[in-house]
């Protein structure tokens, strides 16, 4: 590689890092994304110059196919479906890394190379790439509801996974010992086992844990790309892979903290599959639950001085974000201060709720994260919970026996009045009763989230 091309790649790396840095605030974020685009374009041109356009027709086909699919999907995808989209992109990156390793395997098998570094990185990138690819596909299927979002468990699950992992390690050891000159069938076996493990490790993870899984798969993909960099001796891939890996890892840790559960518990716990959990203390059945009419709630909202909306996955499912914004506008017209409190794991991926509300033009200054929102609740007249459940469950604070005990929650119960918009009295994802619903300051407004919010807006308007 000539000196000039290396320098150009250095510029690209600088643009990637500075672009990511610009994502530290909404006003500069777009410029950041554009800088990263420029970096990618520069790296692309310099690489094409370096390879002198060899295989141009394959590259062209790839650009036409991949570019079309990528751009059409990006423009068409609904914001509520963003988690599935990111899952697929993670899978694409992992799949590409695994395919590159497969190509390099055939180069090694034909007797070129014989380098320990290449064979170790090749086998690692193949394994991690396959894990990420297959795991992401399952995550996509679950999020798209093409398969059940509930954890899928069977007896001996851990043992099966352990056996497959051992098989992978054995084959990988063989691969490295022979410097990548193992039979093609054995390499195929390695790929298949890795794909299988990817599928099996996501199957037992439930929908509400998806923010963790998506972040983790993101970090896997980054890792696979970084290792591919060692395999083909490209610092560019190593750096980009490391940046993505760091990002995914950081988000995974944050999501785990927000659920107060170690990663191992998310991966192996099959949360939400358990039948009936212990009823929370003081639970006396549904007779203590008050339901309110839209008109009652509208009056409460219209004459409040501060209202906090607490959106959850239910808002995304009902596509209610635009209705919520309309209600907020009506209230602001009447001089009510409207804020939005967003729990880190609300929705199906990190920041999911923020993007939905941004889509419906809620200014980002009104979106509070948990640490900023909690001090606001004691001075709030009405907390309106829209399709959120477990993240508002006070049992997490005070019921030691609760499975979510210790999870940081939004303290909606500290507001003067709590209105919960809910389809029915079914328990939340974790299958735990929510004592919030039985508290004296709570009323329930039953029905589809979008229909309920629209009814509230109409009732407020009519006042």
């Amino acid at each position: 590689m000539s000196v000039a091309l290396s320098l150009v790649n250095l510029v690209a790396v600088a643009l990637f890092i500075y672009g990511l840095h610009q994502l530290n605030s909404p006003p500069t974020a777009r410029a950041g994304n554009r800088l990263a685009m420029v970096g990618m374009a520069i790296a692309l041109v310099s690489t094409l110059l370096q390879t002198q356009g060899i295989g141009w027709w394959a590259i062209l086909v790839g650009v036409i196919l991949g570019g079309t699919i990528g751009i059409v999907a990006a423009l068409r995808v609904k914001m509520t479906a963003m988690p599935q989209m990111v899952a697929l992109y993670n899978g694409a990156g992992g799949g590409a890394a695994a395919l590159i390793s497969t190509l390099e395997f055939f180069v090694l098998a034909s007797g070129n190379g014989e380098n320990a570094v290449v064979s170790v990185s090749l086998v690692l990138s193949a394994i991690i790439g396959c894990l990420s690819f297959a795991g992401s596909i399952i995550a996509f299927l679950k999020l798209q509801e093409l398969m059940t979002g509930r954890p899928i468990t069977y007896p001996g699950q851990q043992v099966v996974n352990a056996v497959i992992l051992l098989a992978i390690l054995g084959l990988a050891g063989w691969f490295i010992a022979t410097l990548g000159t193992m039979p093609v069938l054995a390499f195929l076996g390695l790929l298949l086992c890795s794909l299988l493990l990817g599928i099996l490790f996501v199957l037992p993870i439930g929908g509400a844990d998806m923010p963790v899984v998506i972040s983790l798969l993101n970090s896997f993909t980054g890792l696979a790309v970084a290792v591919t960099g060692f395999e083909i001796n490209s610092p560019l891939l190593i750096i980009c892979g490391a940046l993505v890996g760091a990002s995914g890892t950081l988000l995974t840790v944050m999501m785990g903290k927000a659920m107060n559960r170690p990663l191992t518990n998310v991966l192996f716990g099959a949360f939400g599959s358990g039948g009936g959990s212990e009823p929370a203390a003081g639970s006396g059945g549904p007779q203590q639950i008050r339901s309110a009419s839209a008109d009652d709630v509208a009056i409460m909202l219209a004459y409040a001085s501060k209202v906090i909306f607490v959106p959850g996955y239910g808002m995304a499912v009902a596509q209610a974000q635009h209705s919520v914004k309309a209600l907020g506008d009506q209230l602001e017209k009447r001089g009510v201060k409207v804020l939005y409190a967003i729990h880190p794991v609300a929705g199906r991926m990190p920041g999911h709720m923020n993007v939905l509300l941004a889509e419906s033009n809620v200014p980002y200054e009104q979106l509070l994260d948990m640490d900023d929102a909690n001090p606001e609740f004691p001075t709030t007249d009405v907390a309106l919970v829209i399709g959120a459940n477990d993240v508002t469950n006070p049992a997490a604070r005070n019921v030691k026996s609760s499975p979510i005990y210790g999870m940081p929650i939004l303290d909606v119960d500290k507001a003067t009045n709590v209105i919960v918009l809910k389809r029915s009295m079914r328990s939340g994802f974790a299958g735990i009763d929510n004592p919030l619903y039985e508290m004296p300051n709570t009323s329930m407004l039953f029905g589809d989230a979008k229909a309920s919010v629209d009814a509230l807006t109409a009732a407020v308007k009519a006042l």
Partner: protein
Amino acid sequence: MNDITHLIQLLTVLLLAVFVGFEVISKVPTTLHTPLMSATNAIHGIVFIGAILVVGTLFVGPTSPLLAIISVAALTLGAINVFGGFAVTERMLQMFKKKEGPRL
């Protein structure tokens, strides 16, 4: 040995990039975590460039149809990441607006 020195250089690059990554990403506010993820999708689209490099060494002579198919598949997946990742990030980021006007 030259190989070892080279490996250590690459490992150094990896280590530094990881630290820079943690440093930069930890400053991203929770509001932007979804665009952050899609932006990192675009950045790991750098595998597209990896695929071009591999194709550049592989296609020097005549290539088997199998390898050609695998190459096209790898290039396609990489291109999906690059184009789709940047496009969807751009689309999301333009939705993040400040509160306009002097409203309360």
